[in-house]
């Protein structure tokens, strides 16, 4: 990573009529970083990506992409995968990759060789010359990804790249993102799926209603959310609420005793509350500490916690 950022936004605002879709957004992405752009639907993620690409002009603010003031000036150094993968249905994967690679300045023969190698690497060797309209959705998505990578972009912008992929293809995409980052490329992707961001990202930005609500690393994001303790035994919510660091308690009955879900105050460690419970002689039969995940941080920071159902295993 070098000091000069791959991407820098300073107070960028985009309005459509009276509505600010992106409002005073600022962040910078270091070169070689994997950057996750998170937020609920309508948060302004796609509009921000479009501004970065130069497809939409900001209403105000400043934007720098690979040192240029406009993504269009460095379009040959950027690879973009839109949410709905855009490919000519009657082209074959090799033709599509050669065409889009050539548009980005790669000689047709080199683009074909590169595309062949990438497609074969993704297990699509048998479909090199099959029209894209005859491929399955997952295969077509992989072809679109290969078309994005064929010119070895310095900045890779992926809009919801995991949506619609089966777990196998999702894993293959994660590996590919890591490989690109290891090779020095900067990867910016938007997603709803926190587990991908958690595994991949060096930095995440959370958007809600066009405004930035968090900018930092994944551990920093997690620390924004409360930790949780699961306690089982002949316990009362009142006794548990009296323990240090407990923010909220939810109880449910078991055949024998109760199950209590305990949310801790931000910055409070689970073992401190647990030690206090034992010191107080509370009859705890079973306990389980749950570290806060990015999912909880997302819900908390975007204000969606009350509105959204809890996701098991998140």
């Amino acid at each position, binding site marked *: 990573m070098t000091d000069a950022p791959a991407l820098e936004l300073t107070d960028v605002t985009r309005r459509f009529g009276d509505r600010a879709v992106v409002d005073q957004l600022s962040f910078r992405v270091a070169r070689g970083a994997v950057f996750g752009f998170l937020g609920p639907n309508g948060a302004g993620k796609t509009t921000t990506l*479009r501004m970065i*690409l*130069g*497809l*939409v*002009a900001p209403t105000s603010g400043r934007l720098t992409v690979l040192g240029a003031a406009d*993504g*269009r000036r460095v*379009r040959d150094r*950027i690879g*973009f995968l*839109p*949410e*709905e*993968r*855009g*490919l*000519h*249905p*009657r082209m074959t994967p090799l033709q599509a990759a050669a*065409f*889009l690679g*050539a*548009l*980005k*300045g790669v000689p047709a023969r080199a683009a074909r060789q590169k595309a062949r190698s990438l497609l074969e690497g993704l297990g699509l060797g048998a479909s090199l010359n099959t029209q894209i309209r005859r491929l399955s959705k997952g295969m077509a998505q992989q072809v*679109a990804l290969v*078309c994005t990578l064929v010119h070895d972009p310095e900045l890779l912008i992926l809009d919801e790249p995991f949506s619609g992929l089966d777990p196998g293809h999702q894993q293959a995409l994660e590996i590919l993102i890591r490989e690109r980052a290891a090779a020095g490329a900067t990867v910016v992707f938007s997603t709803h799926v926190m587990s991908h961001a958690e595994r991949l990202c060096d930095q995440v930005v959370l958007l809600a209603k066009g405004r930035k609500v968090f900018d930092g690393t994944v551990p920093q994001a997690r620390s924004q959310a409360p930790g949780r303790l699961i306690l089982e035994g002949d316990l009362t919510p009142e006794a548990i609420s009296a323990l240090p660091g407990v923010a909220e308690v939810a109880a449910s009955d078991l055949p024998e005793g109760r199950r209590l879900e305990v949310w801790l105050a931000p910055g409070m460690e689970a073992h401190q509350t647990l030690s206090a419970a034992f010191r107080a002689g509370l009859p705890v039969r079973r306990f389980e500490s749950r570290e806060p995940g990015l999912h909880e941080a997302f819900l908390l920071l975007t204000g969606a916690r009350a509105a959204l159902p809890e996701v098991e295993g998140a």
Partner: protein
Amino acid sequence: MRRLFLILRREYLAYLLTPGFLLALVTFPLIFAASVFLPTLLSRQAPAPQLIVLDLTGIGPQGPGAYVAAQIREDRARNLPQGRAPVLVQTPASLSTAQTPDAAGRAVQAYYKAFGQDPPPPAVLVLAGSAQALDARLWTPRARLLDLSGQLEDSLTDWSRETRLRSLGLSSEAIRAVSGSGVSITAYSPASRTGKVTLTDRLPHLAALGVSYLLVTMILAGSGMILTSVVEERSSRVIEVLVTSAHPAELLLGKVLGILCLFFTGLGALAGAALLIAGQLPQGAVQESVRAVLNGGLLGWAAFFLAFGFLLYGSIFAGLAAFCETPREAQSLATPLSMLMLIPLLLVISGLQAPDSPILRAAALFPPFTPFLMLLRIADGAPAWELATGISLMALTTAGAIWVGVQAYRTGALTQGSANLWSILRRSLQRQG
């Protein structure tokens, strides 16, 4: 430029390598040949009209009925085309009793009623009056004018003239000499290839008409291809990938020029084949016609105006298509523009009779019409200033159309969901300002 060429090549190959293009290459000359030969073929295949001559003048063997019948028999002996040589039919008994034209009319109507419609009954020529005031009525089973009415008029006029000349005491030989006399004028012009003005000299004008038709056909077919292509790219979001890889002007011009090259490939192949075939034919009218069309660089001008016309209209169509989610939306937006092209087409058809008309000259300088009309003016020897003005205005308008098309394409392509064309164009203009 590199990207423009790449997009042009993709569009070109996308259509060139389809069965539809090869099929069009084969069917186009067939349709052209059919449009030339079909009317003659239909005329030759039509059954000869049948005719009953009912002479009520009472003049006898020297009367108009006998004269007309003799002329018809002579024409049939000369093997005239079927449509021009009717077959004489014996007068049925129901008609032969009529004494006046009105009575004959009633009898003919009763005869038609009894005869049926398939095959149609014969036409009936009812002649009454005298040589000085001949009353001739032609009854036909269907209410339409027959080609043979003109022929019958000529024949009866000849009879009337000959009868009057005979009454003045002229002999039959003298009457034939008078009837055969006449003066023909031969026209000469330095603008004619051979010096003497012939029908061949009209061929460049007809070629200009052909180019106008071709341009309208090309624009209508090409606009359909452009609309479909842009709408498909928009609905499948290919356009989002493309606009991050190339400038909208490169995308739009590449698309329009790719389809233009496709048309030129087809036209080139057809023109080459036509020239080869013409070269194999013996010296004569066909070779003379080909030379007349090639003379004066008319083909070069035709290609020039086809290219400019297609660029002008194609750019606007591509821009409009970028606002549409479905081909149906695109077609409804494009229909008014397509209708506009009928105006120059009507003008060029009318202009064949009067290529010097001030209206035609002014219309040829109106940029959207110049590609259709200027060729007719060139064929008629338009002055250099007129040509230069027309081309300059057309070039400027084409550049403007490309600019508007690019703005519309850029904005429309990036608009998600339905778009308000006018507000987006206004924003484009504000952005440029």
